[in-house]
């Protein structure tokens, strides 16, 4: 197990975890905004959210991440860091990757929540409207709380997919697990199988508890009808 002393495997997985958590929080927020626009009464917003979801969801993640780095940052010059700092490249790659993951994962979050909204009986929203509540209050206090409780299990799948998707960040040089793996593949060509098993195991350790815990939570908060 000299691989652990030679390479910072835990450090690389820590970056993977950071990528996952930051992107998950961002995607949850942006996804909720998207779904609110999509089911909302304003046609322009509905049109924008539908178009955004369909375009981004059907674009390969590799292209989105590469575009964030080569397109946004180097060609258009939109930088998220101070270009003179001594760690500008590492910071910039990390932030651009998070941005790309949020943009991509939010579409899946939005579609999952929309399916949850469909489980809330239409009569409830109608009753709330009859009481004089506006769209945001109906959505925020009546529909979304019930919708979220119904979609925890699907959102867990999205989170697991996101955890594994973070490996795509390696193509723009974010120092996460997959980047370290390609380095180890280059250097340890006589122990390829061990390297692969090690990283596969690392991801199982990250994703298996996510699925189990969120599955249990989904059962606990489920709305029984």
């Amino acid at each position, binding site marked *: 197990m000299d691989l652990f002393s030679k390479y910072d495997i835990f450090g690389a997985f820590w970056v993977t975890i950071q990528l996952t958590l930051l992107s998950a929080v961002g995607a949850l927020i942006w996804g909720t905004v998207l779904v609110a626009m999509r089911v909302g009464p304003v046609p322009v917003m509905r049109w924008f959210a539908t178009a955004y979801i369909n375009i981004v969801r059907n674009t390969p993640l590799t292209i989105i991440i*590469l575009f964030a*780095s*080569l397109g946004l*940052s*180097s*060609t258009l010059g939109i930088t998220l860091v101070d270009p*003179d700092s*001594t*760690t*500008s*490249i*590492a910071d910039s*790659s990390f932030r651009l990757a998070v941005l790309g993951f949020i943009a991509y994962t939010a579409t899946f979050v939005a579609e999952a929540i929309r399916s949850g909204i469909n489980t809330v009986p239409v009569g409830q929203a109608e009753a709330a409207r009859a009481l004089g509540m506006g769209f945001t209050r109906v959505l925020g206090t009546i529909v979304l709380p019930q919708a979220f409780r119904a979609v925890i299990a699907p959102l867990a799948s999205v989170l697991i997919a996101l955890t594994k998707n973070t490996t795509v960040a*390696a*193509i*723009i*040089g974010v120092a996460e697990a997959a*980047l370290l*793996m*390609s*380095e*180890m*593949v*280059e*250097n340890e*060509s*006589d122990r*390829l199988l061990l390297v692969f098993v090690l990283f596969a195991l690392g991801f199982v350790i990250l994703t298996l508890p996510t699925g189990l815990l969120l599955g249990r939570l989904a059962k606990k908060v489920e709305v029984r009808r």
Partner: protein
Amino acid sequence: MRFTRSLKAGAGVAVLALALAACGGGGGSTGASETGNQSLADKAKSTQKVVVGIKFDQPGLGLKQPDGTYAGFDVDVAKYVAKELGVPESGITFKEAQSAERENLIQKGEVDFIVATYSITDARKQKVNFGGPYFVAHQDLLVRSDNTDITGPDSLNGNKKLCSVKGSTPAQKVKDTYAKDVQLQEYGKYSDCVTALLNGSVDAVTTDDVILAGYAAAQAPGKLKVVGKGFTDENYGIGLKKDDTAGTSAVNAAINKMIADGSWATSLQNNVGPSGYKIPSPPTVPSS
């Protein structure tokens, strides 16, 4: 009831997976044993066919062109060696050999030999035989033509931005030796680095000089230049099956002939010369 049904389904899937695995394993091993103990030299002569591993994505060295043909210095070397082994050009099948897969491709017998910017190292020698070296490359820097302040690895001091391919040896070398003073951007492909270099978000790209020269030659002339202060030696060899001594010496003889009759220098001049890269003198190849 539901439980037993899902168990059954699970068992079915497991059996299927096992069967597939068995098929895969069987196919692989028969493929290997056919070519297993035969020397490359004999096999090429008797079958008039070789499978050669090259890079498909390196301009000037091994590039698959839009029309399906292959061009580059590595391709020329592969064709020359095949010719010397008695294989006509129509008998050559080119197969993509990505860096991480090269030892595996040879060991499994999926390719007969590999000409793909394959540096001879001690770790690799444990798994494959090397003919050559047919070229000695040096890790170098590619910069924009109007750049004057980058003259070598030491001049990268002062927060310069350097690009290389993720996980590759040149990137690691820079990380270890120069990381304190230089920032490293890693991309999946060198072409992404070249894009970043052209639009100014990195200051230099590093890998072997001949690869850089290939990228420079693929751009409009006068846009990019290779600095020309190589700081390592990379001996490119032709990889073939471990312990195939007869094959190795046949390959060496072919390389020696290619250098002697001038087609070695001509090929380099045609493929990477347009970048202004100075063609080095050929390496010494063991003639045994």
